[in-house]
């Protein structure tokens, strides 16, 4: 389907360029906004993969909640005047970049040479319309324990966040 391919390439372009912007741009506010863009594009990618509900959740959780928090925090910090975006140190940076390059090469090489390229969709067990239902049924039967544990994790996060916001921060002075 040529239209699917076009959509994929558009979204891939959007997400990648936004992702690069997150890393490259000096102003963290723009980083955050680019990340929002990435998140939205990733939601689009989820849609192309038929994961409609997850796309919605991606929008609600990431774009609508987590990134709002990031943007809020950054706006309050007001760190516009950041001269160097990256850490200094030639040697370590070379090491880091080399590492990244190697990893990228390894991943790309593996994927390109792998057999995934011609893989067709296996028999569709779940029709797209019933996917959310199936997702729910799976989540509440097989993965119920994880689900409940996540509930407790979120409780701990809430308590931890409150505790952290109360803390006066450290004992020594700068």
């Amino acid at each position, binding site marked *: 389907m040529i239209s699917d391919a076009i959509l994929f390439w558009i979204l891939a372009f959007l997400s990648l360029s936004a992702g690069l912007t997150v890393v490259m741009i000096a102003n963290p506010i723009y980083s955050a906004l680019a990340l929002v863009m990435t998140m939205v594009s990733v939601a689009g990618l989820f849609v192309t993969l038929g994961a409609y509900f997850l*796309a919605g959740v991606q929008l609600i959780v990431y774009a609508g909640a987590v990134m*709002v928090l990031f943007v*809020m925090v950054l706006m309050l910090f007001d760190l516009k005047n950041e001269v160097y975006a990256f850490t200094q140190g030639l040697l370590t940076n070379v090491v880091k970049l080399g590492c990244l390059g190697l990893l990228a090469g390894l991943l790309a090489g593996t994927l390109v040479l792998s057999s995934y390229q011609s893989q067709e969709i296996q028999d569709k067990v779940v029709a797209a319309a019933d996917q959310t239902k199936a997702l729910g049924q799976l989540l509440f039967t097989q993965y119920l324990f994880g689900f409940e544990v996540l509930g407790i994790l979120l409780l701990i996060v809430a308590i931890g966040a409150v505790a952290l916001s109360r803390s006066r921060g450290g004992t020594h002075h700068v």
Partner: protein
Amino acid sequence: MGKDVFEVTINCIKLIVVFLMMVQAVPILVWLERRGSAFIQNRFGPNRVGPLGLVQLLADAVKFLFKEEFFPENGTKFLYYAAPVVALVPATLAYCAIPLGHPLQYGEYLFRLQGFDVNVGIVYVLGVSGLAAYAILLAGFGSGNKYSLLGALRASAQIISYELALGLSIVGIILLYGTFNLNEMVAMQQGPLSFSFRGHEILVSWLPNWGIFYQPLGFVLFFASIFAESNRLPFDLAEGEAELVAGFHVEYGGFKMLLFFIGEYGHMMVGSGLLATFYMGGYGIPYITNQALWQTFMDWTQDGQLAHILVSAATFAMFSFKLALCLWFFVQVRWTLPRFRYDQLMDLGWKTMLPWALFNVIATALFIFVAHG
């Protein structure tokens, strides 16, 4: 191929039309708001330009276009200009997912009276409208003004606080209908009120089969939440004049201001549309199923195609009427209730509405469990 191109073109045109409908509704709403407030306050309101002052808004729009371009020197240019444009997007995208009328089958073409039919409608609408906070934050930060920033923070904190109650009241809706699809929800609200309780069919013929009768508490919570979501009185703390001058859009004027207006009214329309869809039968005509409606038209016209068109037209009119009713309620409330204090607002959101919404979810689940079991 020809069919594909035709459908794509039709769909694009339809999307643009829906968007423009939303945009053009804004002047009417503003007019409604001003006239309405005038009546409530025993004044006349705009009544000079055109009949009943209806053309006043057109004049306003033109005036906005010719206002001076202005940029605050402390601001961030990109963010400052991006904000009003971004403000348009979430409302539009959300509005396009709301079914406005019964789909129309014309020959081999299916024409939906809806921007697009999304199978995870509710989640999509919630996700998209969650992006509305960005426009506000961008505006607040881009203006480089303390009032703007504070207003934006307040507005976004308020929006996210009430999103919880909103989301929870929607859980009740999902429990009730067992689907995310807005069209299916509308389809389930046809005819008179009837449901089965432990195997007994219960029919209340003098009430329509609307969600509001199953979810009265959810309805109240949802209604209150969309007030807060669209930053309307009594929740317009973001722009409390006494504290923050005008909130996040202090530094905006002219057409940029108008775009924010469109965004805000767009949110009102999305909220009203969802309210109508969830609790008031959507585009459905009360007491009558669409099938019966079609049969009536069929008997009358003896032409299946024409009957189809008539059904779509009637349901669209019905939806518009319900939307207008909700919007009028928005206006009415705005000029009736005083504004909350910020702590009261937060208390209401977190300590009153959230627990009640939880209660609503639990009660609904238990009721369904009992009724089905």
